[in-house]
């Protein structure tokens, strides 16, 4: 059980920087002894079912996503009345030439960046705070964090919908108690930016626990002596954090940030449910926009093109994540 406190990617950066060695090392093969031929087949036999399933449920749809986005595919192709014909880059041309698409891209990026920044900053602050509070307070906060982490997204979304209800929501009632604020009856979802801000709050609320718990585990790995030494050298609290804690936590922070970007770019049910299944133009993010194109407009090809563009947009972030995982030696 205590492993949660002791094991973490936050160990000091490995002394030897791994550029992937060609023969797999670090496994149970004792150096200098190659497995015999028959034994070499065992791992692949073990992997086979997994690879097969993934090829069917993930590989095939991925390929189909790419081919779809180069075809004309609407209702009549779905029901098989017409064959799907290839249209080259038409779908991409249409999508990229549409100014609405670019609005959606900008909105998605602003939304995701906002979510990630708030999540990381709040997560870091709470993780640092957890080190300083009394034990019983730490337990209380941890319970609340894990409970909100475990809340099904759909439940959390409906709860936030209720919190921010225009007439009977507690948020409006509480804010109206402030002098000079009158928000009873205020509809947060009448405007896109305000509504998305509420959704951002919901996303951050759900995402912070994971960040706090991972960073807390990382913080236990920061050697006390280093902090002491820095303090003796005259570093203030900020100095210790900036020059001791932060560099040691950097691998975890990079990992958490990239993961958050990937997750927050993929936010869907929160928007979808908040807007009762029909997000207005002002609420469209890339995910809902692609969904809308496919299932509301019945243009599956354009929907796929948008989804593909989203994946391409994310590839850079994924690359950073993978590099980081390789660096901390998680992938070995």
């Amino acid at each position, binding site marked *: 059980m205590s*492993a*949660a406190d002791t094991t973490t990617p936050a*160990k000091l950066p490995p002394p030897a920087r791994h550029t992937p060695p060609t023969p*797999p090392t*670090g*496994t149970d093969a004792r150096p200098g002894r190659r*497995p015999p031929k028959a034994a070499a087949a065992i*791992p*692949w036999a*073990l*992997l086979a*079912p*997994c690879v097969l*399933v*993934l090829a069917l449920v*993930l590989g*095939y*749809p*991925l390929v*189909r*996503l790419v081919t779809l986005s180069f075809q004309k595919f609407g209702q009549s192709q779905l029901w098989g009345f017409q064959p799907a014909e290839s249209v080259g880059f038409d779908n991409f041309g249409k999508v990229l030439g549409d100014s609405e698409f670019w609005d959606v891209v900008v909105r998605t990026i602003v939304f995701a960046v906002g979510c990630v920044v708030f999540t990381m900053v709040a997560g870091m602050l709470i993780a640092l*705070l957890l*080190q*300083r*509070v009394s034990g019983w*307070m730490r337990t*209380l*906060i941890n319970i*609340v964090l*894990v*409970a*909100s*982490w*475990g*809340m*099904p997204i*759909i*439940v959390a979304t*409906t*709860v936030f919908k*209720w919190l921010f209800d225009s*007439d*009977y929501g507690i948020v409006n*009632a509480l804010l109206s108690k402030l002098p000079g604020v009158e928000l009873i009856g205020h509809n947060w979802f009448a405007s896109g930016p305000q509504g998305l801000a509420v959704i951002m709050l919901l996303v951050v609320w759900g995402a912070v626990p994971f960040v706090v718990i*991972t960073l807390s*585990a990382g913080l236990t790995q920061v050697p*006390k002596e280093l902090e*002491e030494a820095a303090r003796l050298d005259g570093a*203030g*609290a900020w100095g210790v954090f900036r020059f001791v804690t932060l560099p040691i936590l950097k691998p975890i922070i990079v990992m958490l940030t990239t993961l958050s970007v990937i997750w927050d770019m*993929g936010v869907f*049910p929160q928007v979808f449910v908040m807007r009762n*299944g029909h997000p207005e133009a002002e609420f469209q993010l890339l*995910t809902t926009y*692609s969904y809308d194109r496919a299932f509301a407009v019945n243009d599956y090809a354009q929907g*796929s093109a948008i*989804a593909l563009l989203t*994946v391409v947009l*994310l590839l850079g972030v994924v690359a950073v994540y993978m590099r980081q995982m390789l660096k901390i*030696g998680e992938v070995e």
Partner: protein
Amino acid sequence: MSSMTTMTTGPGTTSVKPRKSKAGWNLLGLFVFLTAGFPVYWMLNTAFKPAKDAIDPDPSLLPTGFTLANFRRALNIADFWGPVGRSLIVSLTVVVIGVVVGMLAALAISRFAFRGRKVVIVGILAVQMVPLVAMIIPVFLLLNDLGQYDRLSGLVITYLTFILPFTVWTLRGFIVNIPKELEEAAMVDGCSRTTAFLRVVFPLLAPGLVATSVYGFIQAWNEYLYALMLLSQKNQTATVWLGNFTTKHGTEYAPMMAGSTLMAVPIVVLFLLVQRKMAAGLTAGAVKG
């Protein structure tokens, strides 16, 4: 807040600092506790509230009464046990397939050296990064072609896309943490590789296996988008069931919070039980490559 700045100087030297310095941090901690916990509290508060108090424009922050009427209404608004049963079937099936197939794969990548191992590992990691939403269109078409649209089996297949890579990766973390010397000793003592695994590794892996299964179960149970898209109204699962509280006439919030409570409490309890184990497993891989 001003007290914060004066205290930041000596947080590490807890042994020397008087109790007073903790008070400021605890106050801040209390604020975090209340803010983070409020949505959950308000859900429970509303769920047990008499309906008329739920639509009070100036709601009381403390509980005003106790009633189960909202739960009765929630259970009657649309069939509840049907969706729950379907969610159970889907989640359990996914977990069983995921854990069996995933454990074999996890063994392969954690206990064997073979050509292409690194590619497999990177692949499993990368696959988890594909946003599920982006796949909904081709998955929908695939199931449509296979005649699996609106079938629970179709949903099971779909859920494997995210449960399986996750299971492989997590189990790998647990297996890597079991010293292989134990197995080797058993093999020296005359066990075959298989019996060494069954007698030595498996018992040690069991807690991790349980935690991974529970976690996978929660993920499958919570899934919304695919369940909504790939099943019709008559086959809806528990998450989709929650949508029944919003109709054209508005939302019945108090029963909806009761429904939310019904959905959330078992899941949160399960989550609390396995969370520590999972946190260990998810990060364990880092210690021993």
